[in-house]
């Protein structure tokens, strides 16, 4: 295995082992603090444009399998680890991570001081970075990193959204909803409703694919919805013509302000159909409400962020993956209420419209990876769609 360089725009250079594809990669460097779930992270389309550094030092221990994917392929630009496991040890493992990374052309590095890297990002904020598997003068490489395009203002959604509308489940995918082997118990407890395959008379949920994670689709399907997935640029008219009972605005990569067409579509859908925004979808809603988004210093990427529901004061441990956030001061208070906040830094984690049946969450109720604490929110959204009532009337 050869050497590889990881170089940050500020001139920080780390040398390690190349453990993925040969070549080079550029992107915004972010760190993720989840201790499990690297496969879900790799395949999450929201990471388009980003190089991900895992803070947990042993990665790849349980290999990869084709059940735990969040989309059809890995999307990260590059992958940074302290130590890649030489072995995949799990009864579901089909392949070691290294082979998977190579097969999918992902540049990866291990043997570097990921904690120092994390400290650097924490202190300096998000930085552009480049990864190079060939040996070269790091000063030359650094110049190339500095010249790489910035993620700010870039529309990455077009790079990850589907080309054609389709119905979920896709063949061979999503029939097995992750983490639901023991669902009968949860059903018995009343935590989730009885799952059933989506039939003709079941609620139809249209998902706007800004880079959707499959587990959003799996969750909806397991709750008995017919799920259709729409390219990000689909028009409101086309979506409404499919007579959805609700629309989910999915997660996705990059700067929400760059997805102007999406914001426009959302404006047209408002008031026409109940909506649930997740992550980027939530930020797009914020913009559609007339608010603004801003870039966090180094974002939230991990599976341990506490989010509090302001009305119940109940706390959920959540999965997070975002660099942008809605600025609550810019959102019209008379129309929109902030329902959830992040207890670590008080940023907005959830909103609801006071008139229309619209909920949105900055975090990931679909988890994958991460805790299942927020899954019930899909059920809450479905209640809105079936009754056509606003959350205010329901007193959610």
């Amino acid at each position, binding site marked *: 295995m050869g050497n590889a360089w990881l170089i940050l725009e500020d001139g920080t250079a780390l040398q390690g082992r190349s453990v993925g594809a040969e070549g080079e990669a550029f992107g915004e460097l972010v760190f993720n603090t989840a201790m499990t779930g690297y496969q879900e992270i790799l395949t999450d389309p929201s990471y388009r444009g980003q190089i991900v550094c895992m803070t947990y030092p042993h990665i790849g221990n349980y290999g990869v399998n084709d*059940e735990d994917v969040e989309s059809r392929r890995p999307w990260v630009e590059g992958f940074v680890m302290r130590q890649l496991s030489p072995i995949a040890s799990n009864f579901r493992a089909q392949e070691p991570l290294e082979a998977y990374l190579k097969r999918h052309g992902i540049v990866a590095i291990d043997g570097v001081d990921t904690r120092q890297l994390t400290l650097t990002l924490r202190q300096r904020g998000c930085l552009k970075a480049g990864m190079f598997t060939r040996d070269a003068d790091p000063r030359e490489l650094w110049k190339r990193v500095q010249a790489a395009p910035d993620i700010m203002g870039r529309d990455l959604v077009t790079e990850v959204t589907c080309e054609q509308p389709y119905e979920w489940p896709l063949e061979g995918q999503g029939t097995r909803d992750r983490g639901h082997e023991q669902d009968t118990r949860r059903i018995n407890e009343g935590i989730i409703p009885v799952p059933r395959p989506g039939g003709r008379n079941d609620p139809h949920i249209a998902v706007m694919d800004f880079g959707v994670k499959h587990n959003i689709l799996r969750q909806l399907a397991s709750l008995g919805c017919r799920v259709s997935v729409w390219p990000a640029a689909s028009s409101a008219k086309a979506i409404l013509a499919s007579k959805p009972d609700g629309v989910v605005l999915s997660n996705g990569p990059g700067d929400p302000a760059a997805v102007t067409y999406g914001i426009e579509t959302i404006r047209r859908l408002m008031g026409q159909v109940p909506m649930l925004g997740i992550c980027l979808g939530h930020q797009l809603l914020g913009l559609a409400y007339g608010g603004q988004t801003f870039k966090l210093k180094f974002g939230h990427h991990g599976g341990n962020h506490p989010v509090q529901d302001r009305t119940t004061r109940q706390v959920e441990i959540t999965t997070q993956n975002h660099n942008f956030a809605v600025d609550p001061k810019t959102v019209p208070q008379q129309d929109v209420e902030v329902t959830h906040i992040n207890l670590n830094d008080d940023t907005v984690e959830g909103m609801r419209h006071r008139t229309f049946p619209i909920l949105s969450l900055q975090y990931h109720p679909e988890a994958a990876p991460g805790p299942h604490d927020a899954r019930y929110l899909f059920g809450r959204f479905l209640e809105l769609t079936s009754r056509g009532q606003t959350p205010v009337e329901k007193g959610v």
Partner: protein
Amino acid sequence: MPKRTDIKKILLIGSGPIVISQACEFDYSGTQACKALKEEGYTIVLVNSNPATIMTDPEMAHTTYIEPITADAIEKIIEAERPDALLPTLGGQTALNVTVQLGERGVLDRFGVELIGAKLDAIKRAEDRELFKQTMESVGLEVPRAGYARAMDEAAVLAQEIGFPCVIRPSFTLGGTGGGVAYNAEEFQEIVKRGLDLSMIREVSVEESVIGWKEFELEVMRDRADNVVIVCSIENVDPMGVHTGDSITVAPAQTLTDREYQDMRDAAIRVIRAIGVETGGSNIQFAVHPDSGRLLVIEMNPRVSRSSALASKATGFPIAKIAAKLAVGYTLDELANDITKETPACFEPTLDYIVVKIPRFAFEKLPGADPTLTIQMKSVGETMAIGRSFAEALQKGLRGLEVGKDGWEAGERLSLDILRQKLAVPSAERIFQLKAALLAGMSIDELYQLTKIDRWFLRQLYDLVELEQGLKAAQPQMRACAQASAGSEVHAAGAAVLRRAKQHGFSDRQLARLWGVDEAMVRQWRVQWSVLPTYYLVDTCAAEFEARTPYYYSTYEQPVIALGWRLEAGGSNEPPRATKRKVMILGGGPNRIGQGIEFDYCCVHAAFALRERGLEVIMVNSNPETVSTDYDTSDKLYFEPLTLEDVLNIYDRERPEGVIVQFGGQTPINLADGLAKAGVPLLGTPVAAIDVAEDREKFRQLLDELGLRQPPSGTALTVEEAKLVAHTVGYPCLLRPSYVLGGRAMEIVYDDEQLKHFAQRAFEASQGFPVLIDKFLEDAIEVDVDALGDGETVVIGGILEHIEEAGIHSGDSAMVLPPHTLTEKLMDELRQATKKLAQALGVIGLMNVQYAIKEDTIYVLEVNPRASRTVPFVSKAIGVPLAKLATNAMTGVSLRAQQFTREIEPTYLAVKESVFPFSRFAGVDIILGPEMRSTGEVMGIDEDFGRAFIKSQIAAGQLLPQAGTVFISVKDRDKRAVTLVARRLEALGFELVATSGTANALHGHGLRARPVNKVHEGRPNILDLVKNGEIHLIINTPSGRLPRADEVQIRSVAVALGIPCITTIAGAQASVSGLEAIKKQGLTVKPIQAYHELLTHESS
């Protein structure tokens, strides 16, 4: 929800003496709880019988009862104190059990005491197997199928339901012996039959076998708003079948996909809700089938536990402290994360390092014990290590274990066949045997089949072996590198090899061996080549937020290159700037028999004393159970192995003004020489004094100069020499190795044959140093004296008279303070001798001297110029924190300035009794000797000796009956003495039963004693009587050093059935005094603060 204002006074129950499975971790949790609740303004009433705890320090709680943890005693305390609430979840199983008793007796209702944390029904749902199973099933979780059978046909029905393989365990056998795994009906019949025969109540349990399944634990916290968080996941390297306390474990879990982990997390949340633990921490154990992922719930502890202490240390999340705050009504979101201060406690810590915990065993002290690891815990301590890889953490852990390994070393080279057999049976040695097997070429798959250790761990081990081979081959390269100029390619390549080795946790000493140089050379290379440790923080959040708490571990990282800027300080190797006086304290490492909580207590006191004076305290220790490794205890905590390499690295970084080595037991003392040679200033008594005390010749000279006597003695380096010395001093004599603690391999021998037998063991333990041979003073009274000095003044801390006669290790002997049989003249002589010794040795700090008194002559047995095991006991008894005073003396504050210049002689009596692990080890004789075997201690305190003694017995779990039948069988020399005891027992209404010899002796003195057959004299014999429950107390002194088989049998049956068994005449006399005292007047309780008020502290 803010804290509750409707409760004001809270009762906390500790866990009592240190025993296997309940150690320092409950002092850690209890101390945290006391501090947390006091901080909130509650009045704290504490009960704990263990004087060696920090929690029983008089200032920790408002009122502290050092009394037995029994329902009787606590009922009296409740009656006197009238607490509003009882928090039962922080004192281990002991506190939980006694709480259930109090509840069932109606005491809690009667006095209106509310249980906070967990209610009775929740405790019962978690503790009762059947209720637990029902509860789990009600929320859709599975537990292993199981049942009990009292006959073969019942068992057969169970086998049908459960299927094969299944585990059969006889109920009620000593140490859980006699069970087995059945894979078919034939084996099943055989094991059940044997099990029923072995069980004292003819019962076996049959359980679905989960042996070899993967084992996990989750630490869960819940608040009263029903917020639940998982603090930590733990994966056992040793799969199901080995008690988690005996397993090597890692945090976080390594081999679960997110999907599996989250399912387990969901299950854990369901468990804590279904069991109904309202607030606080619980530990839930799971088994996962390696090939199907099937998840079973094994058990749940509705309280903090050893694992929660480990999880707290592993993550930086203080579970016990938070649990205490949740119990009084706070919710998780209202409490701050202590480490970051800015983020809330309502989150799940994430780690960017890996933690390995390794158990420490004491089989060498328990000859005859079965060293197979099973579901019953056998380890006596543990060490934890933190690294940025499993390999690094494992190697750090193994060198911190102090079992003579410098890291992961290979066990004995054995044939493949024998290795296979050994690997298939879990043992303390297995981790080392794995290396031998890998070196012998065994494959990962074969090792997996033999051990069921997950292949991920095995592969890590395999890679370590590969790397080590490469390192060995790199020897010429390293030498070339040492010659090469800095900046050259040869130099860079050599440094890279060294760095790689260090990243995998190799110690300098291991590398020195591989490269044929000495340890100092490797260290020199590392410094010259800049291969230096990076110190990273345990920060709960993988560096996402800034940590305010300096809790460090070392690792080795690939340095970051700065192309266009200068690397800032703080991240890695920049030494922290000194702003005030700094002192470093070395802890004691893993608990073991002979070195446990008492030493941690002293280290913690040292930290408290220095912080009170505004000095900066740096603590170094590797024991996750302790208060010393609470990041709150010191200003900076380094969670590191206590080896010369690791300590020097920290010293180089911190540059404190001095290092304290005299509080952590033998561990830091053993480092003292190396540290001094490396130029590290050691505080207190000079190192030379340690040498004089340990060196036989120098010590003899010193005593001669001081005009003090010692028993005739000599030293030997071979068995032959030992024999010569023995003949010179005369039998019986005492053999003891140098530089060991806890009387390791110490024996009293009566003739040449015994000498030959035991000398070998002593030479092994002595590791090349001479074995000391002393004339043994039979029937002498032994005395321990603790003293402290500041270079000018010497003050006696306490004089402790041993209750058992000479020959029993001071750590095992019961002791009383002040002495109850010594004349004032002898006491004065003891004081003078102690002062002379302290002055001659230049003691600054603590010192302990052991004396024997025979026929009014005082002999010095040994001197230890360091803190002794009795320091906390004495401190509690006299109400003076000796270790604090000693620390101040060591850092320049004289005893005079601290106003401690006169010995304190209490008017009440305090008895220290030891607690033994015998009930866990079948086949180990319970007779006491010069090798220490107790794991812990309790204190009984009262106004007269009898009551203080009986309290100590009750607290130690020796439940002396107040009526019934006593069986007496003593050796000839004791027959006269025992008649007096028997007479007093008869007067108390006991019926006497004795074997023929003893019975004759008793009859001769006009006592009625029913004779009974010895074991070989026909039936019914004494064993039948014992088994039938007709005997309630046994007084049995061993007939010789090599005890007779029938005596051993009687004693082990007594242990198994929990019948109190007294093995010394002195012990019997004291016990009878105690029984007489209770008969005269029942037991009362009194807080330690009230005793201390009786003392008049005089300053001169």
